[in-house]
């Protein structure tokens, strides 16, 4: 894959200059919020923060955090900081618990968003003329339209198939010679599995996929390897990251070296903090990601608590970009499950499982309370029929998975082998945990 950079000036800017630009943009954002946002002006005044008090980037720590609850409490338009005639787009999260969170964009915000996505799409391999199928659901969700505008900006051929209707997706892929797909890792995997199940009729050679632009949920290197192997078309998968509160996709994405996700730092100022205490952590330390959207004006975001756990690496990448790279999300501060007092992220279980050819990449964690103590069961689908001959091999497989997970988590768990396709598949974010402890 060729190493291409969409905006060399911004993506490869010397760090000293970049930090100066961030500081200038941070001051201007705080000044803007004081003057235009009813929500932030009150909050900043209460904390005693004014733009002229921001003398260095570390002074950001005086600004209070913003949370998802703030967006819910001000539903729908309470945090919008421009007159409605300046807003050109509104998106919202699903709002499965309580009010949805609404975000809004000015025309300039849309421009910035497209620019951010364009950069990561190019880093992921897309270019003018690349035929890209967008298999994210269109609608209030920012994923599909975010990638859509960014890909159009670089001159890619956008095919907005949206999510679902797997057979149609595969037909277009074959007939159009689709080069790249935008999807969640689990849906990308599901499509590959579906393609394989129809390989008698439509051989896998009919698929030309070269780039998998994966987002909306994280993927482990193992899962990615599995996806690439399943397609067998030489597809190269990269992850990208974002959330509607921070425009949508476009905050960061991987380059061909896949050693962390490059942050669009001229737009996003990132910190990691201790979730429990709220203390800012040192550079490179693992904690909850907090992001300030430096250029957003329609609905500004100061020090937004993402609840995602990661660390940030500030070294220059082999690709030449000077932008900091965030580690793949290790987990959600609220996805984190506590089992017998130990912090467990589903992604840790995943990293222990995938790469094993005896089982499918799907799994389910089931938590129960037995005799006042937590028990954790991991269900995996047995697909290797060669193990059926010797009963002992199945037991040995079970034991091996159990040991792998124990090595990573430090706690004993139970592994259950289940039949293929018996664990539910998801087209959106996969649900990996079934918590029955309070039932």
């Amino acid at each position, binding site marked *: 894959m060729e190493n291409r950079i969409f905006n060399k000036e911004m993506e490869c800017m010397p760090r000293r200059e970049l930090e100066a630009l961030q500081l200038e943009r941070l001051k201007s954002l705080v000044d803007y919020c004081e003057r235009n946002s009813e929500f932030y002006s009150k909050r900043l005044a209460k904390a005693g923060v004014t733009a002229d008090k921001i003398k260095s980037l570390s002074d950001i720590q005086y600004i209070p955090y913003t949370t998802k609850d703030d967006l819910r409490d001000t539903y729908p338009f309470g945090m919008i900081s421009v007159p409605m005639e300046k807003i050109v787009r509104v998106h919202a999260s699903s709002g499965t618990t309580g009010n949805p969170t609404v975000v809004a964009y000015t025309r300039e915000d849309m421009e910035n968003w497209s620019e951010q996505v364009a950069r990561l799409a190019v880093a992921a391999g897309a270019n003018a003329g690349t035929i890209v199928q967008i298999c994210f659901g269109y609608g209030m969700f920012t994923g599909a339209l975010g990638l859509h505008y960014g890909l159009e900006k670089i001159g890619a051929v956008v095919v907005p198939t949206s999510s679902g209707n797997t057979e149609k997706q595969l037909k277009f892929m074959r007939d159009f010679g689709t080069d790249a797909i935008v999807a969640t890792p689990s849906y990308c995997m599901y499509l590959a599995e579906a393609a394989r199940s129809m390989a008698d009729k439509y051989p896998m050679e009919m698929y030309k996929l070269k780039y998998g632009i994966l987002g909306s949920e994280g993927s482990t290197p193992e899962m990615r390897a599995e996806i690439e192997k399943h397609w067998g078309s030489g597809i190269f998968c990269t992850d990208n990251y974002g959330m509607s509160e921070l425009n949508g996709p476009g905050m960061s994405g991987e380059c061909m070296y896949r050693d962390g996700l490059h942050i669009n730092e001229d737009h996003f100022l990132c910190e990691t903090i201790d979730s429990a205490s709220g203390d800012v952590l040192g550079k490179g330390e693992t904690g909850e990601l907090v992001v300030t959207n430096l250029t957003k004006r329609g609905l500004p975001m100061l020090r937004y608590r993402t609840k995602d756990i990661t660390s940030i690496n500030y070294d220059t990448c082999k690709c030449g970009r000077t932008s900091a790279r965030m580690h793949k999300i290790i987990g959600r501060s609220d996805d984190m499950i506590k089992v017998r007092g130990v912090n467990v992220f589903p992604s840790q279980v995943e990293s222990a499982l995938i790469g094993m050819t005896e089982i499918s990449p799907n799994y389910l964690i089931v938590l129960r309370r037995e005799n006042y103590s937590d028990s954790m069961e991991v269900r995996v689908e*047995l697909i*290797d*029929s060669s193990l*059926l*001959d010797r009963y002992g091999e*199945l037991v040995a497989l079970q034991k091996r998975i159990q040991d792998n997970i124990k090595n990573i988590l430090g706690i004993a768990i139970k592994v259950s082998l289940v*039949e293929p396709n*018996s664990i539910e598949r998801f087209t959106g974010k996969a649900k990996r945990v079934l918590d029955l402890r309070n039932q």
Partner: protein
Amino acid sequence: MYIKQLSVFVENKDGRLAEITTIIANAGIDIRALSIADTTDFGILRLVVDKPYEAEDILKAAGLTVSLTDVIAIGIPDRPGGFAETITAVANKAVAVEYMYAFISREQDRAYLIMRVADNETAIAALRAQGCDLLDGESVYQL
């Protein structure tokens, strides 16, 4: 000298065995012999049927994990000691038996034994030397 046996991975869930065998029944496939090994969580269903390849395809299409293995089938006299003599021949050659199951037939004085051994060649030679009646696939499928 081998016969084809199906091994099917089965979760230990209510009605699952009924569902799987119904899939075979609906395809008009007849079961000749059957055995199940299980733990509390899962089991392996072993089947000898009249149309093993068809059964494999049908079960795979139904999404099950299935394998087809070569096993040895022998006819033994249905009298006290019939089994012991046969198994002694295999044991004397130090051939490990992975698993086996037996059933009696409609014929008088005759039983059948299906065995999966670690070393097929040696086992067959030992059984032949003992004068055992080794059955081929067709004769078992049509039993």
